[in-house]
């Protein structure tokens, strides 16, 4: 169970982005989080994925309370999540070829042997050809890069997937292909999913349960004033 209770988080403790938000995702469950741009749903997703320390509240992961975030979180907890971000260009290291990008988590966790085989297997799963794997991010399209980012998120076989507007910048066919890959992975492993987005139709069809951000909390500060997109790149804690 991924259980967020009364979470308050933001980038300025005096003016948090949201207060007292609670959300649970059961193992194997797919939950869609629906909300307008700038409301704080991406921040909540980052808190859930242990990438942003909340100002208040608790997070329980499979019954264990989470006490640390980012580098301070134990590696096993961090790698229990596979995260796919909205902007593939910003979430891919521009110096790494796609094969290295996908294999990076394996290398970072000391599992180099068998990395090539796992990369080839995942590339086939997400629909990347061998020649694309030798290219750098600026040499492929957004859709191809997002496929590589999804493969990177799956490479460590996470128990939880957090997709933060994964398909917002993609065409319908690529969206369908990526959602199919996620669903196939979930069917095979029983992983839970938190899909964040603002496309109600997509989330309703994709997820078993869709939660409206407005139902979780009312904004504590005047409605978010940040321009669209600025909430995607924030300094971590």
């Amino acid at each position, binding site marked *: 169970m991924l259980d967020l209770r009364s979470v308050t988080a933001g980038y300025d403790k005096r003016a948090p982005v949201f207060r007292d938000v609670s959300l649970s995702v059961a193992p194997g469950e797919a939950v869609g989080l629906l909300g307008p741009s700038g409301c704080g749903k991406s921040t909540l997703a980052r808190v859930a994925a242990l990438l942003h320390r909340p100002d208040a509240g608790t997070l329980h992961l499979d019954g264990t309370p989470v006490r640390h975030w980012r*580098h301070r979180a134990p*590696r096993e907890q*961090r*790698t229990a999540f596979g995260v796919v*971000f909205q902007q593939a260009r910003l*979430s891919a290291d521009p110096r790494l070829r796609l094969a290295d990008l996908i294999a990076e*988590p394996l290398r*970072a966790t000391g599992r180099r042997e068998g990395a090539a085989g796992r990369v080839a297997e995942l590339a086939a799963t997400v629909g990347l050809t061998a020649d694309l794997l030798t290219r750098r991010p600026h040499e492929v399209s957004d859709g191809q890069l997002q496929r590589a980012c999804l493969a990177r998120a799956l490479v460590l076989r996470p128990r939880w997937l957090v997709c933060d507007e994964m398909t917002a910048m993609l065409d319908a066919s690529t969206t369908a292909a990526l959602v199919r890959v996620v669903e196939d992975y979930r069917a095979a492993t029983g992983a839970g999913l938190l899909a964040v987005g603002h496309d109600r139709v997509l989330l309703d069809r994709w997820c078993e349960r869709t939660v409206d951000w407005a139902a979780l909390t009312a904004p504590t500060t005047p409605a978010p004033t940040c321009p669209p997109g600025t909430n995607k790149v924030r*300094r*971590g804690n």
Partner: protein
Amino acid sequence: MADLAAGRTGTVWRSRGGEGRSTRTLRLRTSAVLLTATVLAVLLVPPLVRLDQQAVDLAAKLEAPGWDHPFGTDDVGRDLLLRCVYGLRVSLLVGVAAALTATVVGTAVGATAGALGGWVDRGVMRVVDALSSVPHLLMGVFIVAMFRPGVWPVVASVALTHWLSTARIVRAEVLSLRARPHIDAAVSGGASRWRVTVRHLLPGVLPQAATAAVLMVPHAMWHESALSFLGLGLPTHTASLGNLIQEARGSLLAGQWWPTLFPGLFIIVPTLAVAGLAGAWRERINPRRRSELML
């Protein structure tokens, strides 16, 4: 409108772009030729030309530039061209060694502060601010005065007072990179702090650090010259550019301009050449600038 109708707009753009490019190309080529000539002179003249730069000829003292001595002679009859080449050799050695040391120290400190953040970042940067508040020539004089005159105290003096700007540049760049989603992805993928720094952050700041290092070489040469001019740098018998200018001060007042002019040019020319190359390189590695150049 007439231009548009005649389809000449593209020609106008190309001609403007071409003009800018030719100026840049000329600057790049001139800088490259000057710097190559300087480096070749420094590397090849001492071993190939078997002339003694210390050879004194009192009969030929303070001779104006001519066929025998293209740059003239100093107040004890030593050939100034040879002295300048030897002086540049020492100054370049000091400049390169000091710039490399300052860049390594600055990059390490800046990357550590930026990557760790929090109180480490605040503490380190306050130390940097405090050190920056002291005029670096003054601090350099203090450092060099603690040692016996020589090349390495001058290198230490310049390096230890010039890593601060590199640390600031690197720290700012690391902070900017750290906020990007690809770092979040690395953290989520189990990368340690060390791995994130070495694999993702440092490669991103290397172009800026390398540019800072290249630009620091002439700056370090100026500092070496300033310290030697004040009599605090290299021993007076060593032909450094600062020493040459310092020794020639008296003759300048007596109307002999060459003993100060040529060592001064030997400082200015490599400085401008390095600045020209660094500017061209910065334009080349900056994708936004590059796309502007293509207009």
